[in-house]
């Protein structure tokens, strides 16, 4: 046999093998991509013919491991994220009506660990009556002393920041006197039956947070804030067993939090407890046998779904970073609920009989957007920004990137805040190249000599990059050239990205910050479900973070300031109507739209034959990327 013909055989074999592999991969991935069904409700009815009843263990796959682990002391940093312990292990004083929230985007505050609350006539003092007879899962009693201890402990860990409560600077901490000495006294005394010395400190009504009894706690604000209760719904508002913290090493220090609770979480009052943790792999939960809500009636739970004791004994939440692995688990039944991202989303859409998935209401608080640097040429020119917002085709982006899953939005207010959304009834910016060119001419910018502008998107966000490419093509039609800079996550910070720091820090770095920046690292959801949230974050010169456009305007700032100083909603509305118009005219942001799918290009999906319904967190995935699993109901049960 000749050498040439001998060499041919392995080559031919390799080619055949590669062709077979390509054919297999093509078969697996080649599907038409139906759009998101706008009629798919967030609470999907499962098929009646399949297996019935809850599984013995509910398995959920999530793309992310909690940043901050399971340590609830990190809540002042708005982590852990995702916090799978939200409402499953930890509960807050108040919550939202989850059914109303995800059916219609209605924001209704409901009691949770508080039974009721009152506000003083001047709107600065809120008194909460706490639920009695509630214990943490380890038997420690829940009471006002525990809540007091938690709030002050977290204030201490934040390095005594007056904005420790989810970045809302509502307290006057100038006379606050809490530090290591008080913590030591707390540890010595305990919070179950506090010593007289500790009681004296806890009942001191000159302080912003104090107790008036075992089951009553008072928050005194520096100025009226009518939406204060909503700030307690998540993050810092999730109540943990402070007594347990004190007995297990304490809070730590501002630069060295107690890490004992990373994988051994602090007990909570919720319907589940953590039974096992494998770092970066899974968390196991089991029902809390002493959950106070076990005695709630079906009507109680229907009225307040987040109080549900849960319908399955055991839950395992896995972190699986690979989308193929998560989809595989969902399709084989290894997981009943799984977060599926854009890579495999078409597989979910083409099997509507097999998979249900979460669709946000049009009125939600999760959105995607692009910021324009209002301090760097040429995006510092208002007319230029107006040209941009009229050139970008939002419908195209929605169809091609988000499977049709973007609901139109006029920011900054979240659509779910219906009373406050789009004050002035302003229309969407028209996608009109003629109008865009007119604005461009008005701006005085000569695009023929303009160097390419920077557009930063974070690495790993596929839909961010896909959107950027469409925006790039749209702006090219009016002569603007964009360079898309895919930025590693560890550089998604100052001086490259303004939203990572305060407004002033962003301003200082404004000439380095890109002209265009993706808003956040993917989708954006609030830290607290208040109508003030968006204004405080995106439009304020006092914001601690998220003012990606480095935007400030006196008319807008008047609205921002009114939220935490004005008791009359009518006055706030008047100021914010003017502010809304101002921001509309200034156009510092391109509001791409409110997302319908949890991950933008994908969502939380479930096996329709097993799962009937579920709710997400009360801040539209601001605190968790998967379902609140005590709200999961099952087909046939």
């Amino acid at each position: 046999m000749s050498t040439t013909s001998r060499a041919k055989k392995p080559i031919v074999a390799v080619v055949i093998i590669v062709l077979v592999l390509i054919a297999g991969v093509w078969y697996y991935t080649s599907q038409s991509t139906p759009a998101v069904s706008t009629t798919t409700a967030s609470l999907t009815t499962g098929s009646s013919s399949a297996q019935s009843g809850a599984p013995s263990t509910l398995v959920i796959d999530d793309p992310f491991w909690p940043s901050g682990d399971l340590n609830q002391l990190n809540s002042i940093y708005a982590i852990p994220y995702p916090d799978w312990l939200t409402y499953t292990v930890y509960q807050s004083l108040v919550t939202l009506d989850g059914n109303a929230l995800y059916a219609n985007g209605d924001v209704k505050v409901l009691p949770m660990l508080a039974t009721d609350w009152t506000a003083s006539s001047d709107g600065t003092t809120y008194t909460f009556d706490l639920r009695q007879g509630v214990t943490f899962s380890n038997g420690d009693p829940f009471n006002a002393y525990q809540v007091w201890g938690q709030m002050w402990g977290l204030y201490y860990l934040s390095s005594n920041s007056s904005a420790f409560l989810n970045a809302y600077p509502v307290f006057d901490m100038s006379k606050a006197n809490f530090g290591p000495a008080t913590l030591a006294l707390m540890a010595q005394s305990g919070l179950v039956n506090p010593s007289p010395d500790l009681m004296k400190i806890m009942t001191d009504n000159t302080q912003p947070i104090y107790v008036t009894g075992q089951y009553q706690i008072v928050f005194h604000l520096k100025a009226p804030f009518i939406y204060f209760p909503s700030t307690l719904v998540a993050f810092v508002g999730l109540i943990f067993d402070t007594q347990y913290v004190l007995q297990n090493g304490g809070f730590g220090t501002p630069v060295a939090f107690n890490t004992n609770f990373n994988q051994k979480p602090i007990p909570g009052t919720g319907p589940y407890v953590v039974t096992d943790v494998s770092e970066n792999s899974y968390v196991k939960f089991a029902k809390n046998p002493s959950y106070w809500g076990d005695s709630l009636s079906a009507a109680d739970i229907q009225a307040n779904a987040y109080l549900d004791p849960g319908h399955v004994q055991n839950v395992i939440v896995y972190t699986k970073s690979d989308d193929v692995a998560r989809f595989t688990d969902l399709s084989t039944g290894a997981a009943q609920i799984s977060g599926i991202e854009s890579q495999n989303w078409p597989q979910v859409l083409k099997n509507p009989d097999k998979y249900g998935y979460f669709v946000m209401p049009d009125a939600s608080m999760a959105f995607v957007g692009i910021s324009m640097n209002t301090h760097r040429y040429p995006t510092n020119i208002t007319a230029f920004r107006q040209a941009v917002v009229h050139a970008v085709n939002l419908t195209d982006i929605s169809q091609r990137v988000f499977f049709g899953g973007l609901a139109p939005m006029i920011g900054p207010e979240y659509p779910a805040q219906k009373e406050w959304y789009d004050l002035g009834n302003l229309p969407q910016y028209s996608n009109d190249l003629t109008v865009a060119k007119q604005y461009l001419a008005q701006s005085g910018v000569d695009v023929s000599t303009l160097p390419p502008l920077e557009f930063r998107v974070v690495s790993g966000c596929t839909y961010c990059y896909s959107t950027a490419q469409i925006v790039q093509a749209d702006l090219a039609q009016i002569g603007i050239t964009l360079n898309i800079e895919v930025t590693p996550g560890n550089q998604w910070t100052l001086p490259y990205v303004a939203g990572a720091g305060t407004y002033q820090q962003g301003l200082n770095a404004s000439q380095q910050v890109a002209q265009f920046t993706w808003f956040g690292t993917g989708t954006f959801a609030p830290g607290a479900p208040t109508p003030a949230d968006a204004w405080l974050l995106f439009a304020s010169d006092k914001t601690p973070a998220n003012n990606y456009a480095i935007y400030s305007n006196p008319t807008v700032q008047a609205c921002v300031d009114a939220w935490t100083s004005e008791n009359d909603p009518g006055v706030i509305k008047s100021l914010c109507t003017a502010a809304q118009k101002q921001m509309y005219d200034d156009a510092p942001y391109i509001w791409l739209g409110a997302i319908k799918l949890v991950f933008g290009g994908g969502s939380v999906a479930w096996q329709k034959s097993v799962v009937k319904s579920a709710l997400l967190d009360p801040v539209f995935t601001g605190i968790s990327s998967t379902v609140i699993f005590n709200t999961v109901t099952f087909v046939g049960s």
Partner: protein
Amino acid sequence: MNLTKYILRRVAFGALVILSVMTITFVLSHSLGGDPVYAWLGKAAGMHPELAQAYIQKYHLHDPVYVQYYFYLVNLAQGNLGYSPSRNFVPVTEVIAETLPYTLQIALFAIVITLVVGITLGVVSARYHHTPIDATIRAFYLTGYASPPFFVALLLLIVFTYLLGILPSGGAFDPTLTKPTWITGLPIIDSLIEGNFPYFTSALTHLILPSCALALVTFGIVTRILRSSLLEIMHTNYIRTARAKGLDENTVFYKHGLRHALIPIVSLSSLIVTWLITGTIFVENVFSYPGMGRYVVQALNGEDYPGILGTAIVFALVIVTANLIADILYAVVDPQVRLG
């Protein structure tokens, strides 16, 4: 030179390599750009500037690189690899202690599969050289060798989990099972020792795909080297003598030829360990296996300098040790090596 001197020289060289890896990794990781305090604290750095400042001072984040390196070496001398921001400031040593056993499990199994498959196919390929069997084997190993490990991992996941449904998609074991007590530090071995067979079976099934993904891209070089080595040896004089003595071909091949042909595999084994260890970074992320490879990616994404350095040191240590063992074994087998 005698064996002791040879070993000491190799150890000294290994220490130098580790120091170089550490220095280069330190400099490169500090050149990633961005302010690490924002990567570590996220929005908290903006929300609480005084907290950011405290972290900057405590970890010397804004000091020159050589100053930071000095403090790192001082801590290292005390056995302190620092605290891992991407793991919520848990000591790096703790994270490594937690993750390294899982990576070693994958690597060890992958080594076994690589050697068993590689040697078997190398022998068969050489025995039936220039036949369709030889051609098929060569095509097979070339395809594996040319494929990136993450690609092979995804393919295996699609075939064995998605299509056939016979192996799990990820993780290290079924969390509903009782974990074994710590004996050797390798959970799969510990479960076998204490007779925890459900856990052992679960851990084994979870190991198969990641280990095979690594082995499939590595065995090819073993097969190729062994095939070439065997074919060369089978034409030497002593083999001709063995045949002339009237020994049957199988005895000549396996007893006389194979034994010597395996010697290059010994020195190759250190390279295999290197490829397998570095390949775990891809494979562990595809299969969500909680080993050091996953931690490395997490540390890189979080600009976690202590984590990046700690894992680099451990990887370098493992690879240098493997090379050292290979060199020693080779020197034992072939004394001529020591004379160089």
